[in-house]
């Protein structure tokens, strides 16, 4: 490897990578954009929490409750620091990124200085994940606002040529993905956010594919909200995060109502807790926050810079190798510039489902389909793609196994 990251050492931290599949073949896991694998440190943190400290938080006066509360809030501190949040109180835990995005879209429907109404416009892009499309469609439908979007160029970049038509005085929200999970594209979010702020719009960044892979700094991006998800960044399932600017979060109405998000409840009306609790209703994913904290420690221990360098290196290698496969077409930027580690492709005459199935039979795990971003497929006039995606534990050998697997695919469907 040319990067500072010792991949073989990293691989030893992930128990599942020892797994053999189908007639004792080594597992080649190239589906990390879908969900990442978990290092031992995260599994230990989960088990240790349940075996020693499990209790509900913020509520009781006993030692387990004090410990569990400290561990949960410690998770928040770590995640807030990872994305350079100006304040830990601006970091809200959710169950996943989808809930985080819905939190924003949903609260914008109700009374606040940011309320969206008829005639207002919401701008997204054609390369969004469904989780950053459907919430805005629902908001538009329910409030009478209009949904508009940036298109995609032939080489898989955002088409910003009509930005001044799209982002106007009518724009109330601009929500877009930082790194596309299908095309791999890294978008110029800071520049778009600056333009959106000129017209007074709120800016939401979907950073699901970025936070796991590269240093992300909410202040440098200049956005108002940033959504991400634990399970793609070595953390457990069941937890995600929303960072939001304090001034905005404070003025939004509550999302979910219930235990913990209140100040005083009377039958005749309630008042709400300060941030971040106002948006954390009910018993939160406590062990999951502890696990996510351990994941952040793990990632920062290795270094996000080193992880990003490895991601670039392995993606570059993969693009090179895939360019050599006859009939293969990359869908998305086909150079390693301004892109993440998800590489989508089609193979002439063979359906992606079939590609993925044959690859699975030789132990190579990829995903085929529209990757929850169907409009991208529509844009490129295809039904689906096969996607290989990489992470800090991916080796060149695994990329080679993918390329060899594609030969096998062709053999079966010859």
């Amino acid at each position, binding site marked *: 490897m040319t990067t500072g990251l010792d991949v073989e050492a990293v691989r030893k931290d992930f128990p599942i990578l020892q797994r053999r599949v189908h007639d004792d073949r080594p597992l080649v896991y190239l589906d990390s954009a879908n969900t990442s694998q978990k290092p031992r440190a995260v599994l230990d943190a989960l088990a240790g929490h349940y075996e020693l400290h499990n209790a509900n938080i913020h509520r009781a006066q006993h030692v387990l409750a004090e410990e569990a509360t400290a561990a949960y809030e410690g998770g928040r501190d770590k995640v807030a620091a990872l994305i350079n949040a100006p304040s830990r109180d601006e970091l809200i835990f959710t169950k996943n990124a989808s809930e985080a995005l819905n939190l924003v879209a949903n609260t914008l429907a109700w009374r606040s200085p940011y309320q969206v109404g008829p005639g207002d416009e919401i701008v997204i892009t054609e390369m969004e994940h469904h989780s950053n499309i459907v919430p805005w469609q629902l908001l538009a439908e329910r409030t009478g606002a209009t949904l508009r979007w940036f298109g995609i160029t032939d080489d898989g970049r955002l088409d910003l040529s009509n930005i001044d038509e799209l982002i106007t005085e009518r724009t109330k929200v601009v929500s877009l993905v930082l790194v596309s999970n299908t095309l791999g594209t890294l978008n110029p979010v800071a520049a778009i956010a600056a333009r959106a702020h000129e017209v007074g719009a709120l800016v939401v960044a979907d950073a699901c594919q970025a936070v796991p892979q590269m240093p992300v700094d909410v202040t440098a991006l200049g956005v108002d909200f940033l959504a991400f998800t634990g399970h793609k960044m070595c953390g457990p399932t069941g937890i995600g995060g929303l960072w939001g600017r304090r001034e905005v979060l404070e003025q939004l109405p509550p999302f979910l109502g219930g235990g913990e998000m209140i100040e005083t409840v009377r039958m005749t009306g309630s008042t709400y807790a300060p941030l971040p609790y106002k948006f954390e209703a009910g018993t939160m994913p406590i062990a999951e926050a502890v696990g996510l904290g351990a994941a952040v420690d793990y990632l920062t221990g290795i270094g996000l810079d080193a992880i990003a360098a490895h991601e670039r290196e392995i993606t570059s290698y993969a693009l090179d190798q895939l360019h050599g496969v006859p009939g293969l077409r990359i869908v998305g930027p086909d150079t390693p510039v301004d892109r993440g580690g998800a590489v989508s492709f089609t193979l002439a005459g063979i359906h992606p*489902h079939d590609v993925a199935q044959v690859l699975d039979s030789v132990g190579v795990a990829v995903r085929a389909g529209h990757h929850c971003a169907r409009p991208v497929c529509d844009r490129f006039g295809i039904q*689906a793609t096969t996607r290989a995606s990489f992470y800090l534990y991916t080796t060149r050998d695994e990329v080679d196994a993918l390329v060899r697997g594609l030969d096998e695919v062709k053999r079966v469907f010859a």
Partner: protein
Amino acid sequence: MRLDSLYQEIILDHYKHPHGRGLRDPYDAEVHHVNPTCGDEVTLRVRVADGIVEDVSYDGAGCSISQASTSVLTDLVIGKPVADAVAVQEEFLRLMQSKGAVEPDEEVLEDAVAFAGVSKYPSRVKCALLGWMAWKEATLRATAPAGQDRQVAADERANA
């Protein structure tokens, strides 16, 4: 994995040389079904006359399993009395939901027994069923009391 148990010769043949493909007139009902996971789609028409499945025609894009199983479907149901065709569909559904634990009835399923291996791959069961579920719905509409069917079919086309 026994890849051969999934991609049997018969399946690959039907995939490469599909039967019954292309939308045809006349028809009594047309439906459009989608596999939400992958976006595979099928538009399927059914013509029923005198209690017989006179024609099934379809168009769509999908993987080898979904294409082949729709092709096999047309072979099996065209020309059969509706009740018999429904029995075939039910047996195929039962096989697909069996997780590999059911011996397919070759008498009823004929070529469709080749799909037995698919039932061990839950993510592909939906592919194998795409055309069959579309056929079931279209046939239900085509055989519903007059007035009702045509209307539903028209709505469906308007939405497609």
